[in-house]
């Protein structure tokens, strides 16, 4: 309840002084508090068995009882996700540019990329863990594998939307291919690339979690699996909440970066 009233007072001040992001944050907090109350109330009033849906307070209490496991798992999974995401994003953009410049390369390799995406991650996961050992790197590789394709496709799409007349104009002023890329083509493709990065942010988390299922000792995926084997539904929901926090947090950061970098807001 105290969280609710705090959110309300922030809301009132927010409208007076800072109408922008503070009010949005306050509304978000209010939404979260309402959702939490509905969850807690529904479970109590409808008498839902803890086996299906435990009370939120029970889950939070369980998380508070062993914070170490959740914090360690959160940080470990975050590291795997970030490394895979960064590598996948960079590789995707580079390959997208290469495909854009070299049509032959694109026609030779692109179909293979498409087929590679139909391979179930988890089957691949067993092999990657074998190749790279049971390390942080192996999970990052799986996250990378899930991420790069989307970024490649959207980079290519974005580069192809560049207006040929603008290219002709810049060329007539003697722009080098390098300048053309940095000043015109990449900025034009940026909105498309960010759409892919937002998608990739959740995909890289999936990769990290699934990768951890092949045997590890820390991580949110490990917590999920351990809770399943011990039929510990409260722990399972705790791990789910932690992954939701990680997933939405990461997505929000990418979306914020998008608003900052693509300030002209070409898409959405």
């Amino acid at each position, binding site marked *: 309840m105290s969280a609710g009233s705090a959110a309300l007072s922030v809301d009132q001040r927010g409208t007076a002084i800072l109408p922008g992001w503070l009010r949005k944050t306050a509304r978000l907090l209010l*939404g979260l508090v309402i*959702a939490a109350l509905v969850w807690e109330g529904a479970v109590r009033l409808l008498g839902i068995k803890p*086996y*299906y849906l435990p009370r939120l307070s029970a889950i939070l209490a369980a998380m508070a009882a062993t914070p170490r496991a959740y914090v360690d798992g959160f940080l470990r999974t975050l590291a795997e996700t970030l490394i895979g995401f960064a590598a996948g994003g960079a590789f995707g953009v580079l390959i997208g540019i290469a495909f854009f410049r070299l049509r*032959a390369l694109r*026609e*030779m*390799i*692109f*179909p*293979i990329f498409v*087929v590679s*995406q*139909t*391979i*179930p*991650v*988890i*089957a*691949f996961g*067993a*092999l990657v863990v*074998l*190749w790279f050992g049971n390390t942080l790197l192996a999970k990052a590789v799986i996250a990378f594998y899930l991420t790069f394709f989307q970024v490649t496709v959207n980079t290519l799409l974005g580069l192809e939307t560049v207006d040929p007349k603008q290219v002709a104009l810049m060329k007539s002023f003697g722009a080098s291919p390098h300048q053309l890329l940095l000043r015109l083509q990449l900025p034009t493709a940026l909105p498309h690339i960010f759409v892919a990065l937002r998608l990739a942010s*959740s995909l890289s*988390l*999936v990769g990290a*979690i*699934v990768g951890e*299922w092949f045997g590890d000792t820390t991580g*949110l995926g490990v917590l*999920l*699996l351990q*809770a*399943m084997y011990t*039929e510990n*539904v409260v722990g*399972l*929901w705790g*791990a*789910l909440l932690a*992954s*939701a926090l990680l*997933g*939405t947090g990461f*997505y929000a950061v990418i979306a914020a970066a998008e608003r900052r970098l693509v300030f002209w807001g070409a898409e959405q």
Partner: protein
Amino acid sequence: MNVATLASPPLAVQRGVLGAILLVLCWEGLARGLHLPSYILPAVSDILAGVWFKRALLGEAAGYTLLEALVGYSLGCLIGIVLAVAITMLPALRGVILPAATAINSVPVVGYSPLILLWFGIGVASKIVMVAMAVSFTVFLSTLAGLDRVDRRAVDLMRGFGAGRLGILWRLRLPTALPLLLSGMRVSTVRSVIVAIVTEMLGAYGGLGWVIYQAVLQIDFVQVWSAIFVASAASLSFFGLIGFLERKILFWT
């Protein structure tokens, strides 16, 4: 993409085939030339031989997985479309369904696998539920985007001629939404097979995921790769089937 390949079929197809052949040759050469052990990388020929040798087992497993994927996929599409149409017909529901769907989707879908396995057991039901969950959200979002794309003036025109909500939905909104809806359905095909396999690996009585898991435990990596090949072929044919239906239904594009 389609337009580009249609415009210049011979060269693009040639290069695609060339790329595939080069990949297979490099793979085969690397595996044979360096005598890589099968747990690192088996040769393509060995894998294809493995597929042929274990065709009964792999065929049965693929059938099992495809059944789960198909049933879950149909259910998921149905749920996604019905929810999106319900929101359009009753705008009051939007404020409830949209935040709920976003909240559920904030956890990566495979995160739910352990929970769904506990709830529904390790039989077919849990895989169907997982696939339906994964598919319904994508289809829901793309259908909603499609239904919202309708031209305001076209709605007003139809109202002016006395069309009811159902009439507008059936004759205007659904046809307008169809391209986006079908592309959402096409993208979800590959996902449905992957999610079925992922869930099978955590616990199942059969299916490709189960075969892969057993093969990993027995350190039989030729069989892992064989199952991967079969899984990839199954997803591609499912994808192709829906793509084919899409072109048939969208005859006007």
